[in-house]
């Protein structure tokens, strides 16, 4: 049986781990390579690096972080943030990333998703959707949540599936940093609509939130703060999910 994945996410800036509250107010808190190794040793099903300010800063540091991490972690590594082109994707894959997540570039030019999934395979292309509730559903934002687009999140999700995305990483901007749980309606709507796996993200504060995320139809749950600040360990999270009859790898 396929297990539901728990994915700790490390927000990385200038080669260091930070975790933002609603995308601002950052605290420096650790070495990403060591953090990733701790996570993989404690049973993380995947590791996610998000280079948060990459869209407007020098991003060579992330390549070095990915290179070092991939020599120590033997679970899948997803890297996102500031990925602009097929060439950027190629570079990250060559450094040892297993999957690359694309946000702004996928919105601006869907061809990046088409071309990269054809070139490298859908299995390594994750489209990251940052969505916020508006009058008629959810609207997607780009540039780390700074720019509105007027594009409907559900329509966009469906389009990305057709373009060849292998997975969708769906973050609720309303929930991100609030620790009040995922946007369950959003996760339900998107995972029912598409036939590719959905990773739920944004808002985890308790282990029950992870349970709710899986029960909303997501194949994987992503969280940062609860793991990063040691509120819960990965193994506690897995034991808890297992106690709620959710299949996980233990």
């Amino acid at each position: 049986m396929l297990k539901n994945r728990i994915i700790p996410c490390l927000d990385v800036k200038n080669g260091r781990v930070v975790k933002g509250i609603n995308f601002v107010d950052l605290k420096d808190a650790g070495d990403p390579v060591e953090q990733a190794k701790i996570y993989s040793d404690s049973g993380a099903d995947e590791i996610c690096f998000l280079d948060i300010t990459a869209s407007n800063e020098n991003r060579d540091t992330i390549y070095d972080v990915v290179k070092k991490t991939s020599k120590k972690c033997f679970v899948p590594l997803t890297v996102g943030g500031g990925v602009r082109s097929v060439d950027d994707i190629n570079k990250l894959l060559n450094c040892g990333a297993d999957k690359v997540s694309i946000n702004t570039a996928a919105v601006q030019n869907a061809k990046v998703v088409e071309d990269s999934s054809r070139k490298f395979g859908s299995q390594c292309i994750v489209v990251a959707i940052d969505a916020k509730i508006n009058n008629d559903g959810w609207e997607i934002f780009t540039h780390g949540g700074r720019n509105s687009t007027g594009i409907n999140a559900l329509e966009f999700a469906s389009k990305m599936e057709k373009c060849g995305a292998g997975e969708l990483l769906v973050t609720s901007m309303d929930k991100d940093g609030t620790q009040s749980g995922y946007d369950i309606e959003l996760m339900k709507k998107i995972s029912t609509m598409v036939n590719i796996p959905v990773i739920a993200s944004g808002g985890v504060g308790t282990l029950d939130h992870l349970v709710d995320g899986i029960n909303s139809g997501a194949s994987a749950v992503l969280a940062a703060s609860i793991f990063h600040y040691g509120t819960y360990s990965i193994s506690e999270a897995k034991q808890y999910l297992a106690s709620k009859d959710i299949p996980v790898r233990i």
Partner: protein
Amino acid sequence: MNVTIVDYNSGNISSVINSFTEVAKDKVNIEITSDLNKIKSSDKVVLPGQGSFKSCVDALNNINGLVDTLNEFATNNKKPLLGICVGLQMFADIGYEETETKGLGWISGKVSKIDNKNGKYKLPHIGWNQINIVKDSKIFKDIENNSHMYFVHSYEFIPEDKNVISATIDYSSNIVCSVEKENIFGTQFHPEKSDKTGLKIIDNFISL
């Protein structure tokens, strides 16, 4: 001993390189190359593969003499070869991803899309699944039945001779996830991404 990872532009092989390097330490020399002479003289070969069946077969064919060299290595000289993911799938006679494409034909069978039962099962099949070991395989030494392995694929290998199957997984149906035919080994899962259990499988292959 030399183990060669065939570098034929089949997509991302850095994780395969990192994991074999980690396991080999100083005991074994790991080469990453498409040089035909180096492949011929090596003791074991690893054939990775990412992307589509067609793109991998095309990439093999793009390197002059590579398919012949691999044929000689695996079927004439019967030296150990491990195919990973699409590397395993290419053992088949034929694949149906993108368009009908001829495979290496080392293990009779075909590669077709996993039946998602009208959307009940998400594709790609991504994540950790438990393998059901159905026959003794040398690469499963000290690997417990029901171990978790990491998968990412939408197509499955369906061999004609079921005796080659060494493990299956349950995802919409019983899917072949590992084969062994004499000196030829293949895993649909990614041992290089399957944590300590995966590294043990790599170690088993290196130690053959």
